[in-house]
């Protein structure tokens, strides 16, 4: 079965950095985010305990600096933290930032005539 484009939002709804729209499409709740001017779509489902992942806050990964001591941000605000328990996933890849065994589904996006589509 070939993939289908599904309209999820308008460009104007996602104008501001970090904004999001969550819609149910064919039984799947999907969120599309504006991260750095690009649109990334993630299933609104946390693989931890089935929480509504995309209702969580945007955050950043943290790392130890070159001095081996200082804590500092390692990424921009492209991490979604599940509102239930705080499990964190990279919005661009769906990858859990702490354990590579966990991942949430992501979707290709496309903009056509001022509308944002997700493809699946």
């Amino acid at each position, binding site marked *: 079965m070939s993939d289908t484009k599904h309209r999820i939002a308008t460009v104007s709804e996602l104008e501001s950095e970090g904004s999001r729209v969550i819609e149910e499409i064919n039984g799947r709740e999907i969120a599309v985010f504006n991260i750095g001017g690009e649109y990334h779509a993630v299933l609104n489902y946390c693989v931890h305990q089935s929480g509504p992942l995309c209702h969580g806050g945007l955050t950043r990964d*943290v790392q*130890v600096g070159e001095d081996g001591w200082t804590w500092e941000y390692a990424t921009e605000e492209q991490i979604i933290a599940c509102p239930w*328990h*705080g*499990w964190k996933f990279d919005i661009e890849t769906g990858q*859990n*930032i*702490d354990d590579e065994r966990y991942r949430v589904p992501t979707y290709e996006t496309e903009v056509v005539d001022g509308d944002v589509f997700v493809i699946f």
Partner: protein
Amino acid sequence: MSKSTTDHPRLSIEDLDVVVDADSHVIEGFEDYLPYMENEYHRNQIENAILPHSTVYSYNVATPPYPDILAPNEEYDAIGIPPCVTPEQKLSKLDEFGIDYGQLNPTNTAVIPSVNNDQFAVSIAQAYNSWLLDNMLDESDRLRGNLLVAPQKPAKAAEEIDRRANEDGITGIQLPGSGLVPPPGHEWYDPIYQAAEDHDLPVCMHTVANVSNIAFPIQYYWNETTAEDHAIVHPFYHMWNLTTLLFRGVPERFDIDFVFQEGGIAWIGYMLWRLDDHYLELSHEIPHLEKLPSEYVADQFYFTSQPIGHSASNPHLLSAAVEMAGPENIMFSADLPHPDFDTPEELFNRINGSFDEKTMRGIMGETAVELFR
């Protein structure tokens, strides 16, 4: 998989090539190790001390421990368990229980974190190590030992490790697991970990009950009995030690192995579930780690089995506890000759049906032989 299948022949405890007591004690007194103290001033001060258990060390016990066993005994001219300050005394106990090797730890000097004076602490570690080497390790190939270090002065501890690490019979470091403040994840101890890494020696952390007041003063002062104190202080210290070592990235920053002693094993699986859970939920506070805490434990942490606890009511669950902790990371220990010791059979007979032969040989001795080289 370490779980057994039904088609392998059942191993008997007599079939084991090697049984190691991975936490085996001497019972050293002041009279044994003080003659080895190199600093004459420190030696005189301690030798002439009134009540040295409270004026050099700060022993804290709620009530007399094990009074029916430890009360002064005429036969031994001392406390009521056989003395253990010569190789013959030590080996006779190992022989009694069919144990081939003992990885030696102190008894009384294990409370070295309670020594207020850092000068005394460093000298006590030096004297104990000299005594141990001269009287036990140099006398028998069946005895190996951990080098005791004073946590009060990590730079001096590192010097002691550098000085002695290559002595025959020294196969580990003892950084006492009770009374460490700051906790062992703190960078305070980095010189000790660096020395351990440099000399490829595992860091053993043995807990004791008589210094619970240092890190858990509220519990200590409100515990009315040794029983209350002893029951909680070992897991309390082990859990705190493991948590700070992991969450502050020590096993990421140093390529060393840790051995937790005297805490039993049933707490480990529970704690690993908790630590992994906290890592996944609060990783912004744990940036040193690159993988789950349980994965560091699988790679770099070992646990000695005693005291198993009273597992007779549900013995099949002891195998589950071993499985959760990681069978490759569990080493049998007897804790001889202390009054809460376990026989080899206490562990072997309970879990033998659940693990294959190689795993059982590892748990009962071969893992310890490999680690304590």
